């Protein structure tokens, strides 16, 4: 990444990032895992591993990103799934045992696993 040498370059760079993000959100599935200290203490590390294993088992390509604490520490590990062009949906208490069903139903079949869902993140957040 080259240096940003002035305000205009920063603004242009932001525009390009937004365009790329918008396009990516229409194209790929994004999985976000709460990996702050609260998430890790609740076992988010194992959840991360389980998600990776399950995805490679089904040969699914997604983007996995680790995020910080969104506040609901009591429900960690929290995992968000955003299908292409769909809202970002949060699952609570995602232990490795819950991973395979979430991936099978939500990512493969496109059906949200209602009983483990907390909510969806508004776009203007």
């Amino acid at each position, binding site marked *: *990444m080259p*240096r*940003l*040498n*002035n*305000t205009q*370059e*920063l*603004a242009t*760079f*932001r525009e390009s*990032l*937004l365009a790329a*993000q*918008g396009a990516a*959100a*229409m194209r790929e599935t994004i999985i*976000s895992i*709460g990996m*702050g*200290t*609260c998430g*890790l203490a609740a076992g988010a590390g194992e959840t991360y591993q389980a998600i990776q294993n399950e995805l490679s088992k089904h040969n699914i390509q997604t983007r996995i*990103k*680790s*995020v*910080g*604490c*969104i*506040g*609901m*520490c*009591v429900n960690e590990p*929290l995992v968000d799934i955003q299908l292409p*062009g*769909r*809202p*970002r*949906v*949060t699952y609570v208490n995602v232990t490795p045992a819950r991973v395979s069903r979430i991936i099978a139903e939500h990512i493969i079949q*496109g*059906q*949200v696993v*209602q009983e483990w*869902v*907390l*909510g*969806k*993140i*508004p*776009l*203007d*957040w």
Partner: protein
Amino acid sequence: MEPVTTIETDASSNVIPYYSELPFYRKQIRIALKNCGIIDPKNINEYIARDGYSALSRALTELSPDDVITVMKDSGLRGRGGAGFSTGIKWEFCRRSRATPKFVICNADEGDPGAFMDRSILEGDPHSLIEGMTIAAYAIGAQEGYIYCRAEYPLAIAHIKNAIAQALEYGLLGENILGSNFSFHLYIKEGAGAFVCGEETALMASIEGRRGEPRPRPPFPAVSGLWYKPSNVNNVKSYAMTPQIVSKGAEWFNSIGTQKSPGTAIFALTGNINHTGLIEVPMGIPLREIIFDIGGGIPKGKQFKAVQTGGPLGGCLPASALDTPVDFDSLVEAGATMGSGGMIVVDEDTCMVDFARYFLTFASAESCGKCVPCRIGGQRLLEALTRITEGKGSPQDLEDIAYLSRNMREASLCALGQLTPGPVMAALRFFEEEYNAHIFEKRCPAKVCKGLITYTIIPEKCEGCMVCLRNCSSEAITGSKRMPHVIDIERCSRCGICATVCKFDAVMVE
């Protein structure tokens, strides 16, 4: 996040509520926590995409340092570390100091038990802190800054280090930021975790490599701080709010919260509460709404008893104070303090003498020992409180507590000693009858203090199943099968295991 323009809806995702409709989030306004849990904190691009560094860019091109200070003063932002002093005025003092170089320091030495606000920002959105500190440096005229963070926060330190490296690479930190004449270098100082190092003069001594002990103020850091140079110390949350204040303006910030405490307050909700977590609420919201609407109330149908704000140096408030608006002045008026944002809720099973003793044990152990009122006073205070919890308290102890508290408050060198009596004084004020029960009736109403309770087995209820006998840690229970058991109170350690394992409710606590 960039709004995806054509969101398809389907039957299943339509019935899922938005976060903004959930009780936990409905009353929250997220400013400092805007990006936490949303973006990947290790990727600067995600921060930039959400308007990151646009405030810095605006400050450097459109605003003079004095303009920035004016915005901060007009916004009314008060230091979120707990003291509540105007951030803009603090910056102005530092800017007006003639000596150079000047330093910008971030106090990330979050040490309160049960508090994790600063850690969550450092871990979840480190660039907001870097941007806020860089804007502060521009306003004050500093070229160097330090983030003082405790070594117990390894993930926070890793994320902030990574963020600094990325910002340097992008030219958003370091020499000639965004091609301007302004340069700012940021360093991390890992603290060893002494509570007193959260006091700004002790913190600076620690950065200098000296023992973390406070010194008298004045001179204030704005005049003589790190290495005797003008320095500005703010908390993580104050800096993290700065970029949005500069971007959106003082008026916007002023429109949130109360007149004297504008903006939002961040709390780490812990203790006997259903929704443990991290929240950001507009100032002025009543305690009741935080605890019962956002926090979801008390678990297991228990009754709310008290809420401790301001950490081990704050104070507790009883149920009668639940309608207190949460802002700097109202909380002090009610008998507690705002503090840095710890909020510990306790239920009816908590003994308020024991609760105060817990915080006092912490605060007196963390006394640095430099001044006598704090070093000896804290110890004597703890001894008096311990006697009360052991059933050996006398009316003289209450007099001693009042006398010691007054002297510590007036004569201690820094806020640690001055505020150590806080939790005891607040507990005495609101739960005096509980202290009296311990002293005069030798009784612990919450059945917590081991010196004041006995466990007995009710013979009529005991089935003689031998479960308690096998589980007793001190071999204090005797009896044989299908015959009522007996607890030897001399041997009993009051651990309470028998009451927990008994299936017939036959163990009585008095």
